[in-house]
């Protein structure tokens, strides 16, 4: 804080009217900025709703993508593929992320916990396209694309989100609860599994749901790892699988208006799923915080 400036405030500079006007102008500008942000959200979600709703039908949801040059078709293969890849990624990332959080909050000394937190932050900052290159070099180079490779990349994107949220939630668990458990003579691992984790369950679920919401729309690594696939509904993770983000990406690059309409409809499905997960996650988090008295 600037001492001389603050001091000058003591003296009435005699232009209170101008000062008030400046203050009101800045206030108005801030309000406009907030309105602008909300407005952009409304316009983007509105565009998706408006243009996607018309193309949405049961047929669209239950039919695989049409072959090149044919019209019609839907996104059933993309829905199934996304479900498999995101599901596999969650199966890998959630247990590992949770264990990392348990390690840093329950076992590690501050001297080791801090660097691990730092590495998680750095991992969170790695662009997802780079994660894609990494998994490409690891699993795809010299072989072929696969849904499994894509789910590994998605798991790497999820990992820091799950772990950091879980760390935060676990550190909110009241120490008195753990101490009570220890005082009863329960082995430490039981105290963690039976007391700490259940108390934090709501918040842990939040982190998991947010991570799923985040990778459900992740596109960059999928382009490198699972973008060229056979027609029809595929379920074998050893093969490249279709996905909703890749469908939107490819349709958005196409010049045909029909593809654009389909892209909007797929975007509507994706955005509804992602926003719904976000809202559910927030509800769980609020409940969990209340339960822990935080």
């Amino acid at each position, binding site marked *: 804080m*600037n001492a001389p400036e603050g001091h000058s405030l003591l003296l009435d500079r005699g232009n209170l009217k101008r000062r008030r006007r400046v203050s009101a102008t800045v*206030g108005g500008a801030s309000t406009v900025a*907030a309105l602008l942000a909300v407005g952009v959200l409304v316009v983007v979600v509105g565009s998706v709703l408006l243009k996607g709703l018309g193309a949405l039908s049961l047929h669209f949801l239950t039919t695989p993508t049409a072959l090149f040059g044919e019209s019609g078709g839907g996104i059933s293969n993309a829905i199934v593929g996304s479900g498999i890849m995101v599901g596999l990624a969650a199966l890998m990332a959630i247990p590992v992320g949770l264990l990392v959080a348990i390690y840093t909050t329950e076992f590690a000394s501050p001297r080791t916990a801090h660097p691990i937190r730092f590495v998680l932050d750095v*991992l969170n900052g790695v662009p997802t396209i780079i994660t894609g*290159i990494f998994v490409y070099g690891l699993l795809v180079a010299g072989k072929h694309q696969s849904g499994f490779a894509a789910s590994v990349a998605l798991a790497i994107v999820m990992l820091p989100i799950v772990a950091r949220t879980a760390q935060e939630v676990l550190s909110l668990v009241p120490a008195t609860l753990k101490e009570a458990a220890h005082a009863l003579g329960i082995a430490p691992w039981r105290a963690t599994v039976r007391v700490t984790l259940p108390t934090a369950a709501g918040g842990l679920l939040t982190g998991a749901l*947010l991570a799923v919401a985040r990778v459900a729309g992740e596109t960059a690594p999928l382009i490198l790892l699972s973008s060229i696939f056979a027609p029809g509904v595929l379920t074998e993770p050893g093969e490249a699988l279709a996905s909703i983000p890749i469908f939107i990406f490819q349709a958005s690059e196409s010049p045909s208006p029909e593809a654009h309409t389909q892209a*909007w409809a797929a975007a509507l499905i*994706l955005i509804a799923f*992602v926003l719904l997960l976000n809202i559910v996650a927030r509800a769980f988090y609020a409940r969990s915080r209340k339960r822990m008295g935080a």
Partner: protein
Amino acid sequence: MEAGALKNPVLRARRNRADRIGDPLLRGLSGLAAAIVVLVIVGIVYEVVDLSSPAISKFGVGFVTTNDWNPVTETFGAAPFLYGTVVTSAIALLFAAPLSIAISIYLTELAPPRLRRPVATLVDMLAAIPTVILGLWGILVLGPFMHDTIEPALRSVLGFLPIFSGDPSAFGYLTAALILTIMVTPIITSVTREVFETVPGDLKEGSYALGATRWEMIRQVVLPYSRAGIVGATILGLGRAIGEAIAVAQVIGGATGIDVSLFHTGGTLAAQIASQFQGAPGELFKSSLAYLGLILLVFAVLVNVVARVIVQRGSLKDVDVTPTEAEAL
């Protein structure tokens, strides 16, 4: 019931055996998980360097300044994409940083208490929109609007500047920068808002008591107190902007040269990888794309580390800047 079970010697013995395994098992498993995180980051660096090594040995450090991307003669350089990355991210931050500060001021100082949470949640939701959908919106809604309205207007007023010269185009640096602005604003806002909330109430009240107007209080108390947080948040936003591949690939147009006009098409490091890697003709082409990735990785890690150091040095250790999604819940 548990205590009753313990009286049974058989159950008790079994339980002790479980405990003897359980404690080291949980410790070992969680330690292994932590090791996996470290391995992943090391693996990422190793793999990206490994994939780009043919291009590194062919072009060396000169790659960074070579303004050429020609698959026919197999001369590749990063300059056009570095330029595109810097220009689009800089413009995005130029818009997003003041916007985020203003939104945070509104959310912490101006908004009626009943509106604060809902508006903050809506701004956060903007960050949850998948970038491929923002890109789709950019191609079909924002792009045509830029071409028909914004760019002609800019040209007629500021056309004497080279950056606003040339024919309007739906795709290009400016459209990409605006999409990045939309992506980055909620991320910066969530951190700045949290930093603003940590400003002690007595400092603010002291300022008001000295006769300051609301803006004077903000300028003389809130902003100086939050300086480190604001800078850190902006740099975090920068990290996000330079790394975005998909939305930018969709709207920047994919040119492989440097164009002074912001209306015109270009490319960024991340977008070039996203759009070319899959169909890359030849090893050197792919390796050069990985080299672009290596440059991007170095930048992204540097930016993130710097942002965190700045935020933490500003004695704001309790402000967590990481999982943007989880913040502000």
